[in-house]
C-alpha cells in the first residue's frame, strides 16, 4: 500500500468520525430541553463542519477549503453565538423548554425516520460518484438539513428556532464542501455573511418581541390566522 492510499484511508476515517459526530449533534439539538445547551451543541456542530472541511482540504490539497474552515469557525462558532447571547436576554437561555409540540422520545424516533429518508433521497445521486467523502457527507448533510427543519417546527422558543435554521445551513454546507469544493471564494464569503445577517436579524427581532410581549415563546404568538 502506498503512502497516498494510506493517507486517503486515514482521512476517510477521520471524515467519517466528524460526519458521525455532526449527525449526533443534530440529534442532540432535538433532544435538549435547555436553550443554552442547544446553543453549545450548535457551536460544536460548526466546529465539526470546519473539521470536515479541513480534512477535505488535505485530501484535495486545496487552500480554498482551509479558508472555508476558518470562515466557518470564525462566524458560526464565535461570532454568531456571541451575537445571539448579546442580543437576547440571559433569562431566555436559562429556561428549560417543557412544552414542545411533540415529546422527546417521539421526536427522536421521527428524527431517525428523517435520516433514513435523507439516505433514500441522496441514493440516486450517489450512483454518480465513487468518492468516499461524498458518500459520507451528502447523506449526513441532507439529514442535517431535515433534522434542523424538524427542530424549527417543533420548538416554540425563539432562540432554538434560530439555531434550528442555522443547523439547516450547516447541513447544506456539509454536503456543499464535498460536492462543490471549488465554489468560488466570493460565494463562500457572501454565504457566511448571509448566515451572520440571519443571526443578527432574528436576534434583533427576538429582542423586540420580548420587549413588546414580554416573552420569547414565539410558538404562542398566534393572533394571525384564518378562522
Amino acid at each position, binding site marked *: 500500500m502506498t503512502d497516498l492510499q494510506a493517507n486517503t484511508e486515514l482521512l476517510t476515517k477521520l471524515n467519517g468520525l466528524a460526519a458521525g459526530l455532526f449527525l449526533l449533534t443534530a440529534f442532540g439539538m432535538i433532544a435538549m430541553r435547555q436553550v443554552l445547551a442547544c446553543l453549545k451543541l450548535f457551536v460544536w456542530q460548526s466546529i465539526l463542519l470546519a473539521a470536515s472541511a479541513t480534512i477535505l482540504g488535505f485530501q484535495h490539497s486545496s487552500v480554498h477549503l482551509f479558508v472555508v474552515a476558518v470562515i466557518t469557525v470564525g462566524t458560526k462558532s464565535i461570532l454568531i453565538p456571541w451575537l445571539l447571547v448579546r442580543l437576547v436576554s440571559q433569562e431566555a437561555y436559562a429556561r428549560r423548554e417543557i412544552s414542545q409540540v411533540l415529546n422527546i422520545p417521539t421526536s427522536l424516533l421521527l428524527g431517525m425516520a428523517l435520516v433514513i429518508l435523507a439516505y433514500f*433521497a441522496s441514493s*440516486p*445521486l450517489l*450512483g*454518480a460518484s465513487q468518492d468516499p467523502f461524498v458518500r459520507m457527507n451528502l447523506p449526513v*448533510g*441532507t439529514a442535517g*438539513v431535515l433534522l*434542523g*427543519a424538524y427542530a*424549527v417546527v417543533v420548538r416554540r422558543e*425563539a432562540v432554538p*428556532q434560530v439555531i434550528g*435554521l442555522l443547523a*439547516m*445551513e450547516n*447541513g*447544506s454546507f456539509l*454536503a*456543499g464542501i464535498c*460536492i*462543490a469544493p*471549488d*465554489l*468560488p471564494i466570493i*460565494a463562500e464569503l*457572501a*454565504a457566511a455573511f*448571509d448566515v451572520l*445577517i*440571519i443571526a443578527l*436579524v*432574528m436576534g*434583533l*427581532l427576538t429582542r*423586540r*418581541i420580548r420587549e*413588546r*410581549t414580554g416573552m420569547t415563546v*414565539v410558538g404562542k*404568538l*398566534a*393572533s*394571525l390566522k*384564518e378562522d
Partner: protein
Amino acid sequence: MELLVVLLVPALSAILCVLPIGGGLAALSTVVGCLAVFLISIHVALTTITRGHVIAFLGWISCDSFGALILLLVAFVGLTTSIFSLGYIRRVVPQEREGKKRRYYARFNLFLLSMLAVPAFSHLALVWIAVELTTLLSVFLVSFEDTPEALEAAWKYVVLTCMGAALALVGILILYWGMKIAGRGDFTWSGLIVASPGIPGPFLQTAFLFILVGFGTKVGLVPVHTWLPDAHSQAPSPVCALLSGIETTTVLYTIIRLLPALQGLSHGPGSWLMAAGLASAGTAAFLLLQVKDYKRLFAFSTVEHMGIIMFAAGIGGTSAYYGANLQMVAHSVTKAFCFLAAGSILLVVGHREIASVKGLIRVSRPAALALLTGSLAIAGAPPFAVFLGEFSILKAGIQSGQEIPTVALAAFIVIGFCGVMYHVNRMVFGSPDEEEARVRLPGSVLVALGISAIPVFLLGGYVPGILEEMLRLAAASLGR
C-alpha cells in the same frame, strides 16, 4: 456598466438616508434614486433588445431580456411605491420621530437593492444570496409598525422563508455538482443551459424539487404559503406593494429560469409546476371568500396569481411561456396598484376590517375609485391587463391539450373573481353607518396612484411594441 449603476444607486440612497441631516433628505434621495434606477432600467431593457444582453461582469453580473423585464418591473413598482411612501409615511409616523422615518427609507432602499440584484446577477450562487437577502432586508419593514401582530408576522416570514432558502441551497449545490460532472462552463443561467445535456437526470430532478420547494416557500405556494397573508397584510402598505407586487415575482422568476435546463428529463418539471399551481390557485380562491381584512384579501389574491403563473409555466410551449410572462408583468403592476389603493383606504378609515368599511365612495372618491378599478383589474375583468394574461394562459392550456386542468383553473379564477368583488362591492357602495366627513389624501399618494394606474389600463388594451418584443424574447429564452 449600467447594471452596476442600477445596484449602486439604491445603496447610495440608503447611505444618504441614515445620515442625520435635514428632514426631507431621506425621502427626497429615495424618490430621486428610484427615478434614476427606473430610467437606467429602461435603457438596459432597450439594450437587451438590440444586443441580446447587458454585461457588467461576465459570468457574475449580466442580464438578458428576461432578466431586464423583471428589472424593469422592480424599478417601476419601486418608483411608484417610493412616491406613495412620501405621503403615507408622513401621515402614519408622528412628526417628531425623524429617526424612524429615516430608518424606513434606508430599509426601503436596501430592500429594493436586493430585489434589483436578483435579475441583475447571473451566477446562481449569487442569485441564491440575493433571494435570501430580499427576506432578511425586508423583515424589519414587515415589523415596522411594531405591534405584536406585525412582530408575529415578521417572525413567521423570516423563519419559513429562511427554511426554504436552506432547502434551495441544497438544490443549487447539487446543480453545481452536476455542472462539474458535465465538465464545463460558468455556473450561470446560460452556462447551465449549455451544460444541461451532460448533467445526469437524477441531479436535475432532485435539484429542481429542492429549489421548487425552497423558493416556492417565498413565492407562496400552497401549503407553505401560511406566512404570506400575515406578512403581506401587516407591513405598511407601500411595503406590501413591494412584497406582493414584485418580491414574489422575482423569486418566481428564478424558478421559471431553470426550465430550459430541464427539458431533457423524461418526467419533466411541467407536471410538478401545474400541480403546485393548481393547488395554490384553488386554495387561495376559496380562502378569498372568507377574509375579514382587505389587505389579506389582496394577499390571498397574490397566492392565487402565483399559482396561475406557475400553471402556465408548467404547460410549456412558447405561447404558454408568453402568457406566463405577460401575466407576471400584469400581476406585478396591478397588485402594486391594489396595495397602494388599500394603503390610501387605510389612511382614510384607519383600520383594516372589511365589515366596517361601507360607502367608501362618499368618504373619499379617489380611494374608492382606486379600490374599485384595482380590484376589477386584479380579479381579471376585461379590459385590464390581468384579463389579457389569464386569457392567453387559458388559451395556451386548451391548445396544448390540457383541457381538464385548464377548465379547473378557469373555475378557480371565476371563484376568485367573485370573492374579490363580493367584498369590494360592499366596501365601495352601500351607505355608511354614520355620516363621515370627507378625508383628503396627500398629493403624493394621488400622484403615485395615478402613475401606477397607467400600465394597469394601458396593457389591457395594447402591449407597446418594445414590451411585446421583450415578452417574446423572454418566452423564446425559456423554450430553448
